[in-house]
């Protein structure tokens, strides 16, 4: 903070680099407004929805791919391709194909999906063979086996995917909002800050995004810990 303040002083122009004090002042102005909270709510909902869908669909596809070779052969190359596509290409494609209100959700989904898929797939592959033998010998019913053996084994891989995925969902989701200039979104606020050379607002909203990303990560990891074997 001190270094930032010194650099801001030496630059001497608020529109190039606002000082921390100016950013805090802008935050103090923003926080009591209704607009601030609706903006946050909208972006939070859309980006979280994209992340959650990716977590569910990615895990489900990974389970199917681990169980059926044909699904693996079909889905793994597709997911690898999605992983290699630049975020900007996705955003522009989605803008062409879909309603812009869904842009952040679809972008976050497409960015997080390959991470969850790859991690969960690896987790399933790395399950302890000896525990699977135990389940086979005792003929443990599938549902019980999933809860007692599979989920706890895959959970560390899923948690790692969530940790990386939450941050990426926010980065890509907000980038999509900026490019798409989505009405009432955090991305639109960043875009306005650029247009009006308002670096105090730009940095204030960046602080908000980082805070939201960290908070989301904490919530997601807390939820993951509640799954079977999560406290281990």
């Amino acid at each position, binding site marked *: 903070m001190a270094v930032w303040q010194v650099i801001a002083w030496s630059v001497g122009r608020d529109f190039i680099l606002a000082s921390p004090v100016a950013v805090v002042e802008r935050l103090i102005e923003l926080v009591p407004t209704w607009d601030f909270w609706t903006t946050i709510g909208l972006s939070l909902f859309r980006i979280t929805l994209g992340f959650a869908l990716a977590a569910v669909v990615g895990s489900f596809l990974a389970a199917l791919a681990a169980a059926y070779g044909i699904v693996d052969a079909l889905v793994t190359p597709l997911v690898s391709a999605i992983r290699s596509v630049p975020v900007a290409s996705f955003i522009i494609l989605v803008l062409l194909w879909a309603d812009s209100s869904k842009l952040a959700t679809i972008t976050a989904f497409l960015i997080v999906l390959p991470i969850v898929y790859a991690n969960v797939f690896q987790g399933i592959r790395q399950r302890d063979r000896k525990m699977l033998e135990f389940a086979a*010998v005792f003929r443990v019913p599938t549902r*019980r086996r999933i809860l007692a053996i599979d989920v706890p084994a895959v959970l560390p891989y899923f948690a790692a995917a969530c940790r990386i995925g939450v941050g990426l969902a926010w980065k890509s989701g907000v980038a999509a909002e900026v490019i798409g200039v989505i009405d009432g979104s955090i991305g639109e606020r960043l875009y306005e800050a650029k247009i009006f050379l308002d670096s105090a607002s730009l940095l204030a909203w960046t602080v908000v995004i980082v805070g939201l990303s960290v908070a989301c990560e904490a919530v997601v990891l807390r939820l993951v810990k509640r799954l079977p074997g999560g*406290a281990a």
Partner: protein
Amino acid sequence: MKSPIALRKVTRRYDDVVVFDKLTLELDEEHVTAVMGSNGSGKTTIARLVLGLDAADGGTVSGLDGRRPAAVFQENRLCDHLSAVNNVCLVLDHPDRAYAEEHLRRAGLPDEAMHRPVRTLSGGQRRRVAIVRALAGDADLVVMDEPFSGIDADSKADLVQYIRDRLRGRTALLITHDAREAKQFGARVVKLPARAVPNS
């Protein structure tokens, strides 16, 4: 009447190493058969064949169809995050916590250890949970691979009594290197010749 479990002229190799060659062994129906031998003689491999976890490279393994197996593995293979009671309930047809507790108590597990994750239990306590898990259910074939490993000699009596009670009327294979253990269960002893290969 089920056909007896029999290994006939069974050969098993791992890579190029022959664990045993043309081994013939029949398990006594509703009794304990103890297989004894030094390390590397293939005791655990026999257990795996009987449990259907390994296939023979030659010969036949018969009498496994329609069996309901259970096992005390060399390693406990417990679900670490589950309690002792839940580990037992996991394999019961109709999970019943009171029933599981009663069995764990009979096997010498203290009450305070019943509901903690088994990863927090001592080695001996974990072994007792693994034994109860194999014996509390309705299995008609029980394979026990060195069941007393990690159990203190002075706290063994109640466990021996529990196992003896639960094995009554069941077909069991006991893998051990201790002749006294085989005797405690009135087992017929089959000795394997020593071979210089590592245990699988």
